[in-house]
């Protein structure tokens, strides 16, 4: 397999920790609805949405975009339970569909980006992982996202297409916690989004997954009906779909529609 091995900067474990911590923090407090936009976004979008937030706020002085970053499925549950969210960006159509079906979106969802998966190994590749076949090895410590979250569902699709039965040692609750364990060298390999390997400031190396078995993940975004600031949600979604927004996404390695 032609493996392009790339290394990037360091992801702070703290970011994964912060994301998980966020899961257990309810959205408290209130403020003037018109100057605050609450955006729930998938863990795998953490970095690019932080950038989108900054760009949006720069273009709209006085507006504060508040990001709620967690696993898409957890965000979906929060929204279905009536969480005050203005826009929802998820990592799969599967996690978006129930929200659309429940009639909680304004005019359905739009795909704003595509992504594919990649193998991530710690810097130096201590397990000498060369490709998907190594995921069957009992000797290696292998981690995937849990099947309940999109990166876990996609990873299993890739595994089944490649005909590999993975010898999994942990099913992580979200992609950032998986990435952290790989960066720390606690796992020998895992399957994450290509964008995670690209944008990670981390001590991880990426190994490409052949197109024939890879997936093309759709990232949908929607304005949420029950949000306290639907108009703001609409403005943010429009910004993500705009030339500037799409350029930022492309900069983080996303394929734009």
């Amino acid at each position, binding site marked *: 397999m032609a493996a392009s091995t790339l290394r990037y900067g360091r992801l702070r*474990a703290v970011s*994964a*920790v912060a994301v*998980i*911590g966020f899961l*257990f923090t309810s959205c408290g407090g209130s403020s003037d609805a018109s100057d605050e936009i609450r955006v729930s976004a998938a863990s795998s979008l953490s970095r690019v949405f932080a950038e989108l937030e900054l760009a949006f706020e720069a273009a709209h002085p006085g507006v504060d975009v508040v990001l709620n970053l967690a*696993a898409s*499925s*957890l965000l979906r*549950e929060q929204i279905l339970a009536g969480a005050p969210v203005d826009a929802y960006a998820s990592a799969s159509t599967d996690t978006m569909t129930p929200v659309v079906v429940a009639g909680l979106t304004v005019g359905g969802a739009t795909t704003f980006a595509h992504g594919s998966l990649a193998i991530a190994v710690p810097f130096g590749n201590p397990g000498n992982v060369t490709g998907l076949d190594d995921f069957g090895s009992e000797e290696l*410590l292998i*981690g995937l996202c*849990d*099947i*309940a*979250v999109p990166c876990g569902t996609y990873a299993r699709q890739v595994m089944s297409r490649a005909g590999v039965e993975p010898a*999994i*040692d*942990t*099913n*992580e*609750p979200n992609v950032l*916690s998986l990435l*952290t*364990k790989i960066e*720390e*060298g*606690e796992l020998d390999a895992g399957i994450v989004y290509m964008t995670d390997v690209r944008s990670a400031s981390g001590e991880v190396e990426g190994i490409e997954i052949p197109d024939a078995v890879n997936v093309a993940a759709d990232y949908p975004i929607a304005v949420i009906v029950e949000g306290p600031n639907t108009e703001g949600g609409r403005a943010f979604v429009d910004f993500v779909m705009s030339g500037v927004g799409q350029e930022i996404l492309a900069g983080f390695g996303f394929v734009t529609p």
Partner: protein
Amino acid sequence: MSREKARHGRSRPPIAFVVLAAIAVVFFLLPLIGLLARTPWSDLVSLLASEVVADALVLSAIASFAAVTISTVVGVPLAWVLARVDFRGRALVRGLVLLPLVLPPVVGGAALLFALGRRGVVGEPLYEATGLVLPFSIWGVVIAVTFVSMPFLVLTVEGALRNVDVRFEGAAGSLGAGGWTVFRRVTLPMIGPSLAAGMVLTWARAIGEFGATVTFAGNLAGETQTLPLAVFVALETNRDTATALSLLMVAISLTVLVLLRDRWLRPQ
């Protein structure tokens, strides 16, 4: 004060106290009512009759009892030292013991990973010497839940030791009993109820532990997936299973807490 009067005082509490206490009870009761209202009663048995649930139940039982055992074996001596020995840095040690209570469990789990993981400060030499990897194993689960739950035992027992009249110990000592005998025959019976309370609190904290476990030990059904982790995974896929599992945890915990309270923690 006569016994009569003391009993009288107990039977007629200030009305304001009763009202405030009732508010507190309602506060604890509401989430339980919410859980019961959501429980899919008709499918309860089929939802819980799975290998994943059985595995999680066994693992949670092993890990929580291991946490209580370890906490007792090293935590009681620690509590004794903190209560009886005046040494420099005692406040610091006590602060250290409190740390797991203040740290978000996920941060505690990450810290454990940095210390005891395969590439951790202590974990790396351990791995190189023995090939032992603590995360992603039952050892990882036990370490994570013990880290988070032991403070409850140490704090409870230390508090009790401070209230023990040291003259009893002194008397026993002057009659020729050795240090260990004094502790076993005099001190231990006096702090017995507090020790039991500490053990129960430790167990309760251990059985519900989520954040440190998932961060340090990972999540694999049959290996490291305790009941709270199973609830978390189920919450993202099947809410009915999550509710059924939560109810199971509540039932187990309430049963144990109520039974133990009646047996050991009766007011003296």
